[in-house]
């Protein structure tokens, strides 16, 4: 349900440009073509991201997605998810500063425990940088021609030859 009382700055919107998605079991793979990063969103993170349409506030998302949790806990859960999405640049026009301090381990632990008790996973996102094609090849042994140190097993290319 859209939250018309909130301004756009309070209603997160999922980024859609330059993103490729693929569902893998209950997770969502998102590949960001603009920075060559691949993200794996667990079911909770994927649900939050999919519902970020720019018209719903954090509270509205929370009550929609996690109705079994107390409102303050569900809002915190969504806020953590939003912050993790923001850090991965998966949201559009969302404030640059953090909305939740993810360095507070106690708070994150509490969120995870409360969520687990209600049968919900805390929103998690794992990210890798897609390799350049040069990285995904076997390295060259000593004495072989090279043009960059990364090509050599020794990690050292000197005078166009692997050391």
């Amino acid at each position, binding site marked *: 349900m859209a939250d018309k009382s909130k301004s756009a700055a309070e209603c997160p919107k999922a980024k859609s440009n330059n993103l490729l998605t*693929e569902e893998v*079991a209950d997770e969502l793979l998102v590949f960001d073509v603009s920075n060559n990063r691949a993200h794996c969103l667990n079911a909770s993170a994927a649900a939050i991201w999919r519902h970020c349409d720019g018209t719903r506030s954090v509270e509205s998302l929370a009550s929609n997605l996690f109705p079994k949790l107390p409102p303050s806990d569900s809002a915190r859960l969504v806020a953590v998810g939003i912050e993790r999405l923001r850090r991965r640049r998966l949201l559009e026009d969302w404030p640059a500063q953090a909305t939740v301090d993810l360095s507070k381990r106690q708070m994150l632990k509490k969120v995870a425990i409360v969520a687990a008790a209600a049968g919900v996973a805390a929103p998690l996102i794992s990210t890798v940088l897609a390799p350049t094609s040069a990285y995904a090849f076997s390295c060259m042994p000593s004495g072989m*021609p090279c043009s960059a140190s990364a090509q050599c097993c020794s990690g050292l290319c000197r005078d*166009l030859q692997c050391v």
Partner: protein
Amino acid sequence: MENLERAPWADSLTFTSFGVRIGIRVNQPRFGKSLAALLPPGHKVTPSTAPHRLYSLVINGLAGERGSRRLGSLYEDSRPLAKERELVPVLKFLEARIRRTVAEMAPRRIFVHAGVVEYRGRAIVIPGPSMSGKSTLVSELIRHGATYYSDEYAVLDDRGMISPFAKPLSLRPHGSFNSIDYDAQHFGALKGVKSVPIGLVLVTRYAVGARWRPRRLTPGHGALALLSHCVAARREPQRVIKTLRHALGEAVILKGVRGEASELARQLLERAAEIGVDEI
């Protein structure tokens, strides 16, 4: 730079591998056998039509001439790639470069830098960077009864099935950056011939004295682990993530640090024999 189009070419051949047509030419006669030895697994020699990529090997000086210096220059299309006083490193470089070209340009396959064996109809895939112990673990798995598929690339088709890419295994003696090539037969193993689905992905690296206590990864995290070593991840991300979804549908994905490869290979295959590769 030599003018390649005017050079007198004495020998040449064209072949295809996974849909990539590659030509090689050399300016000296009697190199046909040497060129044939460089071709990648699964190649087919084809009539000499326009290749997708052409390698030109220019050799100055003749074998056996006293005092002659044999300078080998290698070009990829018209781009100089290597110039060496010795021919062996140039030929080795060309061999690796050809496999790399196939991996980069194959139109209907995804290449992941990984070791692969097959056991009881399922592939065991070990993705990882160079020097992470892939080939060592592959050699121990085939020594213990698995079928050899590759120590360099997992080759996936659009359905996520794995094809063999059985180049000779390259094993590095301890502390050396140089490898020695072994045929699968050296380990008493067969080479794979048919496509198989993935049963198990091992995300691992060697550490002295480590005990194998893996944790199970979700299919999504398994996809990230394979994507991290995928040659075409940046060029064709859509096809890559779609293929990985198909490939990991039934697979178990384990992550952990391993100790000696021999012990892990024995454990894994004993367990796989009892309950199946995709139930480990």
